């Protein structure tokens, strides 16, 4: 960013969006900075520092759980509202991100803004069927999280728009969930495989399930075959085995290095079986 000519410190969303709309200055927005701070492109002429924006509130409403895009991992991990949602799975995921010093800086908005294979929130938010609110000068839109990665948005967060809010649907509050980051160490930012598993269990029957997969490709993916295999079954060892077999089908469609394919398939199956057993 040696061409940086200007740094803007917006105190409100409109000022931030106005600064980002000044295309001549080649603007770039920075939140926590742990992913992007060291990788700001040399072409960036104007840095838009988001730290002063009032976008870190976390609140439960009738329509769901709203998490401001600037909420840090530490704030999410320690939020009572988040702890009471979906068994506190978002807190568990936040705690598995790198070190405390990083968790004090990194934000949920930054973590989902661009797909990076090891980001912890994208696969989990996908499994929780989260929506994101995105704003730009003169407009805003709420879309499913996947829309950030599949071209639906047609904009680049941090360049010409901002993610302002992550919304978990009210229906996700009572889900039974687990987040598993299989990595070399607890605080390792890398992960061999990340699995986020959510299920709705009623009267001993799995009504529905959603499974998010991370770390295997830059873009997080759902595992629809495994989820379908779980629906209608009873939690336990047998359902776990069936779902694990179906998960292999989901993984087969992903570009995983053949060298580690068998190992990752095995680990993913074990993690899923463990989750299904825990539902009983």
């Amino acid at each position, binding site marked *: 960013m040696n*061409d*940086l000519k200007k*740094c803007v410190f917006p105190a409100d969303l409109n*000022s931030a969006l106005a600064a980002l709309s000044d295309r001549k200055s080649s603007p770039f927005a920075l939140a926590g*900075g742990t992913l992007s701070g060291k990788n700001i492109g040399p072409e960036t002429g104007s840095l838009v*520092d988001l730290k*002063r924006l009032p976008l870190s509130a976390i609140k439960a409403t009738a329509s769901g759980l709203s998490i401001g895009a600037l909420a840090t991992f530490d704030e999410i991990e320690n939020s009572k509202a988040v702890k009471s949602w979906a068994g506190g799975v978002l807190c568990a995921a936040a705690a598995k991100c790198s070190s*405390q010093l990083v968790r*004090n800086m990194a934000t949920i908005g930054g973590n989902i803004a661009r797909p990076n294979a090891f980001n912890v929130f994208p696969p989990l938010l996908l499994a929780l069927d989260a929506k994101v609110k995105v704003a730009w000068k003169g407009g805003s839109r709420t879309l499913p999280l996947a829309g950030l990665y599949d071209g639906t948005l047609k904009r680049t967060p941090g360049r010409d728009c901002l993610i302002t809010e992550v919304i978990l649907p009210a229906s996700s509050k009572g889900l039974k969930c687990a987040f598993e980051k299989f990595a070399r160490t607890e605080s390792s930012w890398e992960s061999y495989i990340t699995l986020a598993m959510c299920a709705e269990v009623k009267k001993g029957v799995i009504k529905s399930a959603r499974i998010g997969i991370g770390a295997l490709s830059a873009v997080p993916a759902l595992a629809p075959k495994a989820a379908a295999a779980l629906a209608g079954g009873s939690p336990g060892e047998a359902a776990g085995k069936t779902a694990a077999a179906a998960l292999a089908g989901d993984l087969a469609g992903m570009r995983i290095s053949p060298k580690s394919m068998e190992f990752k398939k095995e680990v993913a199956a074990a993690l899923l079986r463990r989750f299904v057993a825990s539902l009983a």
Partner: protein
Amino acid sequence: MKKNKTESLAAEKGLFVISLTLNGRPAEFRVKPGDFLLDALRAHGWKGTKKGCDTGDCGSCAVMFNGKPRLACMIPAVTAHGAVVGTIEGVGTVDKPHPVQEAFVEAGAVQCGFCIPGMVITSKHLLENVPDPSEAQIKKALDGNLCRCTGYVKQIEAVKIASKKLRTKRAAK
């Protein structure tokens, strides 16, 4: 330094002039666009903050930044404009060390000493928020502060000693 107001800084002759509160006092730094807070601090004489990995992994550059311990090597210097920053120089001195620093010496937690400024910054923040932390809480708070000399046992012991010191001090008031 009005944090509720939109501000804009322009570079002049390739330099930004940033104003911040450093160790409780107003400070002004001239920084290059590619500088990080760590570079800026050290270039302006605040060398207690150490440059270790420079990639956000080791914690030796930890400083207090707007109320929380954060990694100075990950903060573009220009974005420290308006920030409240605390470095190890603001914690204590050789003549008048902070109880956390005393505890690190008493516990023998210092070997080469390179990681200690970051460790002290993080430990002090922990004890201000959790006066009597469990060992698990200490380990979690320090999980981003790497030490290549020791096995962390002495540092954890130091935080426990500091906790006792600070609680005794508070009770005496």
